[in-house]
């Protein structure tokens, strides 16, 4: 059994209304010094050892991320 993390983030040139809303709110809450925020998704998967990296990449690209507007990174992590 392996643990896999897939991080999915909006592409840099794509508008990120969520991150923007957080960034705008922070000074109002009294937190200064945060100059930019981007918000994406994090997936934590438990996979059988038989699942290889190519398959994981495929899952991320075709399903977890929307390649038109998002970038993604797949990482195996220590359990």
């Amino acid at each position, binding site marked *: 059994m392996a643990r896999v993390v897939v991080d999915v983030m909006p592409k840099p040139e794509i508008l990120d209304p969520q991150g923007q809303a957080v960034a705008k*709110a922070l000074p109002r*809450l009294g937190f200064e010094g945060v100059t930019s925020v981007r918000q994406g998704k994090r997936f934590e998967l438990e996979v059988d050892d038989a699942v290889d990296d190519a398959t994981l990449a495929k899952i991320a690209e075709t399903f977890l991320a929307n390649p038109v507007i998002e970038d993604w990174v797949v990482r195996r992590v220590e359990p």
Partner: protein
Amino acid sequence: MSRIGVIIFPGTLDDVDAARAVRHAGAEAVALWHADADLRGVDAVVVPGGFSYGDYLRAGAIARFAPVMGEVVAAAKRGMPVLGICNGFQVLCEAGLLPGALTRNASLHFVCRDQWLRVENTATVWSTRFEPGAEILVPLKSGEGCYVADQHTLDELEGEGRVVFRYLLDSGGGTGSPNGSRNDIAGITDARGRVVGLMPHPEHAIDPLTGPTDDGLGLFLSVLDAVGAAGALAEAVSGR
């Protein structure tokens, strides 16, 4: 005339409906702007539905920090009646006035439909006009309406009779939730029965022309009974 405040955040949508419901019930609706830390002397507050700040982070997460919310929390602690509808319910949970949280519907889809509810507690200031066990039909429209809380909180809510509204599968049918809510909870109250939050929209059910029924008016009439009586008492005591 009693004055009921209706809060407007950027992105609030159902404020016109909440104000209309307040007027239909016979009170004056007072618009309260999110950026003003001022309740303008109202007798009760409605936090209406919508998508405050787009709800991009988490429903209600940003709105609860608005200047007006500080006043609402303070007033609620003094016993002012507060009603949170849909996004307003989410804001009240985020602000800690009500326990638990609202999460993504189990179906993952936004759902807009006419929804049967059972009134489980008729002792709160927002529900005295209903018969115990009354079934009402009001619109439900939300994407993050799934009520969750830890088991201890749920036990407490149930034990103290603080579930005010529960989802029904149908009129006369058993309970069942359209969004995965724990214990089919549609609405709850604080321990004193003065702060109430619910996901469905009573303010959209005040006239059968534009809503499924006028069942929702009961909440607004209830609170007017409470603040009207309190107002009369205060007037009598102060000899006004």
